[in-house]
């Protein structure tokens, strides 16, 4: 048997998960998230209070960072626990964007100063790349010396951000958000809104150049894809649990609807997908968090594309079934099922579709 890393939660994971869950219960009940989606601007007082609780009180924005980087000396494995909990609550804060995408990119580029700022949560980073595209250097941004110019559409987290990381094919650049023009877009997922980012020949800080910059983006792409699976797992868990609960109560034809075999079998199939998605997400997180030189660390590119090939479609499938099995109420604005549906679909497109990742995977494992 090949030695696999532990896929079980450690004791500290359980404490961490409980602390985050408690915070979410207090500051981000699902009705509050629903309400916040109607606000014209994202990241209002409610969401900011949640963000402050996570970054100031729990200090989880810098979990995978070294102490010298302002971090907690934990790993991406522990960050995955936070990401899963936030997924369960479909939380409308830029944790994934700043504490995963931007942080993994800054970490890979060795941008210690930026990492220290991001770890506090007082600065929020976003990566200037279309969210629904592979996480790759973008050619639509032009580089002129240390000045950048160009327009990138449908960027996630730009609206909440204070710092923009721009992955250009030749360099990784840092721009202050206040130096860019951010145009909000009505977004399919209103819990993670997207915006167009316009850079009108702006002075940028060069974080890395050439091959080093490309490798940093590649590492961040793998970590981000691996971690996104934990968010998808959280979405799927909540969607299935809430559907099961509803079908245990809802009566039609004089029977609890959940006693009909046709529905029970569908739920059993979803649960079977879920237990596999959980294992895939845990493996991806373990690989992202593994020490350099280990077999698990070496397997990260495979684990990341495996995760996005499997967990994205599973979360979408379960969120779709959640709407369907709730019947009429599931199609209403007041019921939260749609928040999970929209987030799941957007996540499946994010950082490369399942089909794109299958193609990557096929190259990695020689199919």
């Amino acid at each position, binding site marked *: 048997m*090949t030695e696999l890393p532990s896929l079980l939660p450690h004791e500290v994971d359980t404490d961490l998960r409980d602390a985050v869950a408690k915070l979410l219960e207090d500051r981000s009940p699902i009705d509050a998230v629903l309400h916040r989606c109607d606000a014209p601007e994202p990241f209002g007082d409610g969401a900011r209070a949640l963000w402050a609780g996570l970054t100031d009180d729990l200090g989880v924005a810098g979990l995978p960072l070294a102490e010298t980087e302002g971090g907690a000396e934990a790993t991406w494995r522990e960050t995955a626990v936070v990401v899963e909990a936030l997924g369960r609550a479909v939380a409308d804060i830029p944790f994934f964007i700043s504490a995963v995408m931007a942080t993994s990119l800054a970490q890979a580029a060795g941008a210690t100063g930026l990492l220290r700022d991001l770890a506090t949560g007082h600065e929020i980073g976003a990566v200037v790349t279309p969210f629904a595209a592979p996480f790759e250097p973008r050619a639509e941004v032009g580089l002129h010396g240390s000045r950048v110019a160009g327009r990138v559409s449908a960027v996630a987290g730009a609206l909440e951000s204070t710092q923009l990381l721009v992955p250009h094919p030749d360099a990784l650049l840092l721009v202050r958000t206040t130096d860019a023009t951010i145009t909000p877009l009505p977004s399919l997922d209103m819990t993670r809104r997207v915006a167009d980012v316009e850079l009108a020949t702006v002075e940028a800080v060069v974080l890395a150049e050439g091959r080093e910059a490309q490798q940093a983006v590649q590492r961040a792409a793998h970590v981000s894809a691996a971690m996104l699976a934990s968010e998808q797992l959280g979405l799927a868990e909540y969607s299935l649990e809430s559907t099961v609960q509803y079908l*245990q109560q809802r009566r039609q034809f004089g*029977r609890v609807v959940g*006693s009909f075999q046709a529905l029970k079998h569908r739920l059993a199939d979803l649960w*079977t997908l879920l237990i*596999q998605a959980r294992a895939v997400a845990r493996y991806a997180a373990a690989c992202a968090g593994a020490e350099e030189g280990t077999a698990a660390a070496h397997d990260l590119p495979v684990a990341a594309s495996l995760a996005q090939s499997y967990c994205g479609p599973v979360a979408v499938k379960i969120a779709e079934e959640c709407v369907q099995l709730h019947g009429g109420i599931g199609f209403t604005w007041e019921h939260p099922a749609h928040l999970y549906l929209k987030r799941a679909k957007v996540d499946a497109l994010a950082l490369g579709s399942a089909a794109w990742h299958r193609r990557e995977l096929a190259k990695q*494992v020689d199919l």
Partner: protein
Amino acid sequence: MIDAEAELGRRVQEFLAAHPPAQTDRDRFLRARFEAGLAWVDYPVGLGGLDLDNSVQPAVDAAFAAAGAPDNKPQSNVIGLGMAAPTLLQWATREQQERWLPPLWTGEEVWCQLFSEPGAGSDLAAVGASARRDGEDWVVNGQKVWTSLAHTSRWALLLVRTDPTVPKHQGLTYFVVDMQSPGIDVRALRQLTGEAEFNEVYLDDVRVPDAQRLGAVGEGWRVTQTTLMNERVAIGGSVGSRETGPVADLISMWREARADRPELLDDVTRLWVDAEALRLASALSAQAAERGTPGPEGSGLKLAFAQLAQASSSLTLDVQGPQALRYDDWTEHRPDLTTPPDRVPGYWYLRTRANSIEGGTSEVMRNIIAERVLGLPAEPRVDKDIAWKDIPK
């Protein structure tokens, strides 16, 4: 713990020194291994074990294998080792255990299971084969089906109805029956692969001593639960490495044929992904069990295994291309269960159809998940609280 393992290792080495495998007759070697408590070390002392935790068993088996010792050919007695033995351990008398367990473990006596009937498949508690008390014996009549190994078995586990006037679960009784008894007729059951892996067993006035009853009269369903719980354990396999298991043939054939059929790449990749997801889920489940907190994943893993095995074996034919139309052998024969058969992909396409039927259908697995894991209510039952004889058949 370390001391106990060292002590066990020393015992194995002493045994091997006293019974050099190369110079010892196979049956004598295996009997001696049983007597030394080194057969299944988690079993009680005197019944082939040393009352140890079963986690040390792999190390013992590995030490014997490394010394070139003969094994007990577990594949030729799967029902005996996996299901009969734990049932006997829980329900038989000590005297019966001492009679039945040694030759069961050595493989000198093979066991089978007379449970399913043409009219009782997923609804096993509906069995209709009857047993009528006659002095110190019971007289059994009926037909059993899907009996693996009946043709090589010396003993069988038998579930029969002793009281048709009470609801179905209450009227059942469990026996051990000697397959050499007069009135037992074993007939090969040919399956859609062409071979005959299973049997039909006809029981015509077969006399079974009351002393071979396990559990009380009417308590057969409880005893059956012991057997079936162990079936699930026996079916949930171990965790292999990447690209082994149900996708192994597909992937290796794909690497040879991909230049001819590039259009199948995404289909192959999808199953590679599914296989890896199932492998990781099995590993997670095994890790939880190792930590002492086994989860409820077993039914889901069996369900996913059947789906993956069927999809993979099917796609292997697509990858194979024109040669897929050739079948290797339709002659009716008994498969050799001790080695995996070397057959064409078409055979595996057909054989994997059974994966979602045998050992509990995928539909039964879904019911188990929905009711026992997700806590959904059972379907209303029309056969509840009525005598078995009055259930429409």
